[in-house]
């Protein structure tokens, strides 16, 4: 596979694109489930950048970071989905614009 000829910046472009799309999703969606999904996309984009950079140097550190991101994503999803259930129960909606009890 040594002949793989992908410039690193292409991979990073992909990662940036995915990140932007995920971020756009977080911004435009009101449903918390979609927001969570968008966050997954963003995390994944970051992970891609890490792995790509790690591959570039031929070092395992990028994948180590990937494992870390993975565990963060897992923990976040576990808690986040728990919260989704609570929000649905409390507010009878998943619309985050309605769940604004923290306003000052």
């Amino acid at each position, binding site marked *: *596979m040594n002949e793989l000829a992908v410039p690193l910046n292409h991979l990073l472009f992909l990662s940036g694109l995915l990140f932007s799309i995920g971020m756009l999703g977080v911004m435009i969606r009101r449903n918390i489930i979609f927001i969570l999904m968008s966050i997954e996309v963003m995390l994944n984009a970051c992970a891609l950048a890490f792995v790509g950079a790690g591959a570039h140097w031929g070092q395992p550190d990028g994948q*180590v970071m990937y494992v870390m991101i993975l565990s963060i994503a897992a*923990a976040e999803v576990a808690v986040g989905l*728990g919260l989704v259930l609570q929000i649905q129960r409390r507010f009878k909606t998943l619309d985050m614009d309605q769940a604004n009890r923290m306003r000052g």
Partner: protein
Amino acid sequence: MLETTIFYISAAVALAATILAMTRTNAIHALIYLIVSLLAIAVIFFVVGAPFAAALEVVIYAGAIMVLFVFVIMMLNLGEEGDARERKWLEPSIWIGPATLSVVLLIELIFLIGSVEGQVSQGVVSAKMVGISLFGPYVLAVELASMLLLAGMVGAFHLGRRLLEKRA
């Protein structure tokens, strides 16, 4: 060369699947596209010489985490009216502003990334190397990750349990 081609194809699939996932009104459909996107990225991982990461991507991301989403969506039982509502929420007037911001950010990113030189691959980084690294210099990070997972577990349990008790 083959790998290069596979990379670009997978990248296109990942992008397309992600965009579709982000724009669906039905949560399950969105989720399926998201899984596709994740699988495409797994392929990229494999191509760039990170088979361990690719395996994890498939097993944990696409396998475990997305299944969690599926369960929750099933529990919420959103139904048809949810679809309609989502559609209403996706008016252009709503997404134009954020989209502009995203584009600006993307342009900035591209500017920053554009200066990066070099190729991706220097060869396969095997699971063994990752393991040595994880339990060598990064052992503290592993501990931290384990704490984080524990906290996530406790939190999820706490939130879920209260829900169940109240229901009962």
